[in-house]
């Protein structure tokens, strides 16, 4: 059955079983490998995407529930990695293995969209569904604060500030 939704700004139609999780549609049907499989049960957050701007675990979301909605994956967060969260992640050198970081970045960018200057406890609350097995949590906190600053910077000052308009 054909299911249509908007993926990273583009109209997309897939013909798959409606109960297939969005994660596997993204990875194996649409060849977008950035969204990761970690647990399959919404425990780890590696599969986090935005559905109409809200962070969602794609491993437990049937693709039928994506019908008519706007899906954003890590590949669509910015054109060139210039979203303030992506820029801050590189500047702070957050990743170790890197496997969870797409999910972390999707959760962090959703947090900043609703709360542009989060405190540490706001961060802990919003990010506690995303496991980092390498435990880069110290830098994840620092990078979210840095991204908040980058997003607030005057738009003329730096390339990354342009990407910040989304947040």
């Amino acid at each position, binding site marked *: 059955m054909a299911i249509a939704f908007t993926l990273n700004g583009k109209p997309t139609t897939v013909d798959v079983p409606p109960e297939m999780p969005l994660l596997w549609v993204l990875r194996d049907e649409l060849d977008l490998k950035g969204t*990761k499989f970690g647990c399959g049960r919404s425990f780890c957050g590696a599969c986090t995407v935005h559905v109409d701007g809200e962070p969602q675990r794609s491993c437990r979301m049937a693709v039928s529930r994506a019908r008519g909605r706007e899906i954003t994956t890590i590949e669509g967060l910015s054109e060139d990695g210039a979203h303030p969260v*992506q820029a801050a*992640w590189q500047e702070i*050198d957050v990743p170790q*293995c890197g496997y969870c970081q797409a999910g972390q970045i999707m959760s962090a960018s959703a947090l900043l969209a609703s709360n542009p200057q989060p405190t540490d406890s706001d961060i802990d609350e919003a990010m506690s569904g995303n*496991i980092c*097995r390498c*435990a880069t949590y110290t830098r994840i906190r620092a990078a979210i604060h840095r991204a908040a600053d980058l997003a607030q910077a005057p738009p003329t000052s730096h390339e990354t500030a342009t990407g910040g308009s989304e947040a």
Partner: protein
Amino acid sequence: MTGADKAGNLSRRGFLHVTALAGGGMLLGARFPLNGARGAAAATADAEATLNAFIRLTPDGTATIMAQNPEIGQGVKTMLPMLIAEELDIPWRQVRVEQADFDATKYRGQMAGGSMATPMHYESMRRVGAAARAMLVAAAAKEWKTRPEKCTAGAGVVRFRNKSLSYGELASAAAEVEPPNPRTVPLKDPKDFQIIGQAIPGVDNPKIVTGKPLFGIDVSVPGMKYAVFEKCRVHGGKVRSANLDAVKASPGVTDAFVVEPTGSAAPSPSIFQVGLPNGIAIVGDSWWLVNEARSKLEVTWDEGPTASQSTAAFDRQAEELSKQAPEQDLGNDGDAAGALASAAKTLEAAYRYPFLAHAPLEPQNTTAHFHDGELEMWAPIQTPQFARGDLAKALGIPEDGITIHLTRMGGGFGRRLYWDYMLEAALIARQAEVPVKLVWTREDDTRFDYFRPGGYHFLQGGLDDSGNLVAWRDHFVSFGEGPRFAPSAEMARNEFPQAFVPNFALQASKMPLGIPTGALRAPTSNAISFVVQSFIDELAAEAGKDPLQFRLDLLDAAAPGTRTSFDAGRMKAVLELVRDKSGWGKVDLPEGTGQGVAFHFSHRGYFAEVVQAAVSREGELGVEKIWIAGDVGRQLVNPSNAVNQVQGAALDGLGQALDQEITFEGGRTNESNFHNFKLLRIDQAPPVEVHFVISDNQPTGLGEPALPPVPPALCNAIFSVTGKRIRSLPISRHDLSWA
């Protein structure tokens, strides 16, 4: 391009241009000995070593540097090329890094494990870069008809008087220069380092933050099918029969079959042992559909002897063994029994730690293509060389018929020292006669691990009437059979406090184990540090001494000339530094808050750590801060990654101590996913303050040694608040309430 071209050089450069387009350019390898830990003998024996690193220079001056080791998150894909680039003397912005495939004809020591990359390669990788730089200088000198000693090189340019040529311009001429002996090629004075010692972000960060395919699980090859593999839940069990026809009729399934290889089961020549797989493969067009089809499987299993093993039975058996004479002596100094009998004070305590899973976030996977008698694989593997040898035996094909492409790994922690999933994928691909990507579920990953083995220590300690430690006896009840311990279930006979206590006895008894065990980040140390550093704390309290000062005094106690397993002076230095940084004994902590300390030597690294924790009267625990002082020698290659590794290792240890345990019933693993095997989350992660002592010693690795002190330091902090000793992990099993 600049510089004076002569006709001859133009034609060479034309050639270079063509080869550069084909991915070529100047290809440089260097022969060099293993250095450091292996010593001079290996250097001599290594005279016939083949290429072990590549540098490609293109005319635009870009150096492509091959990263030879597997990247599991330890930062080696950035670190090893930094070492090469430093001595090549090229700006880091002109460096491109590529992951090398496994290739024993070109590279040595392509392995991720034991925090070994820095000690093994710190000098040898620099020599690769220095040899290349010498060839570029020689090429320039020839061009200018002068001697190489008259030229200088730096920042990607060779200079002589007012002339200069860039590395890109010199590349093709340099490729024709006889490589110098890398063993004697001069290395930079560390004060001239431009790259080593700089905080350089991970080379894959741009791809990671934009979601580009990098990991084994992201691999896709033409014509590929997906596979899952169902094994007996009882470790070591085998398939008797299964309803394969019903499964084959499921949507998306193209094939289902039993995998029961009969190839050689000879033990691997390495310390890592992997058994032959047995189970049922389901193959099809979509991973999700083939995994859904698993629910239709009805299998009759031969569960085998391990079905009688359980955590409860291990606990009972260990208790019984503790009351019997130990099976073997591992080490004896002085007269522990006599000294305990005559000690002014004695203490006894029984410690226990659980089995643990590795739980890397990327589930195990491999893509395999078997064609024309050869096998091509894309695999997240820490030990490609051992894996290939074992695959060749299991499949009955020559090793050089197996190609392994190394992928970035979504964590290792020791799990991917074992190649069981590669064997499964290879056997499935051969039988399916198509390229196959095998992906495990989280449940597969949690249940079928090479677990950190649990263990039991029955300790006695004796103090003299001045409160000095005079006797130590440990009856270690572990797993294994005959003289052999199960993998990673052993204990070094010189483990601290051996050599620091005049009367010392380490004894062991073993229980048979049918469950696979293996190395987890800081193997053996991650468990033994908890036992030793907790019991030391108990003895300090019994002696009425400050636990940190008690440790400093103990580090002074080695008799002159005694052979100790580590340098006590280096350990004292980190202990004193962490004392000062944490405000140990000086800061006024509120009621309900306390600090605990521990130190541990492992993987050549010296680490002392203080944990500050708050425990409410109701027993609610909050870890407030961790201070760390470490000594890994005279040079941090990449300080950004160094701090990241240490913070991550410490929080890894915290997660283990707080709430991790793998248990067994009927030979099956009880835990299955992150709801019952709990990894640390951000709201449990305290700040971790990291300090290094820069000592005049060889640089050593950082992937592991910061982990072991955390569990005991935390338990000791809990004691300082509650008066309760935590003698078994995880802490979540204990009532911490206090009045």
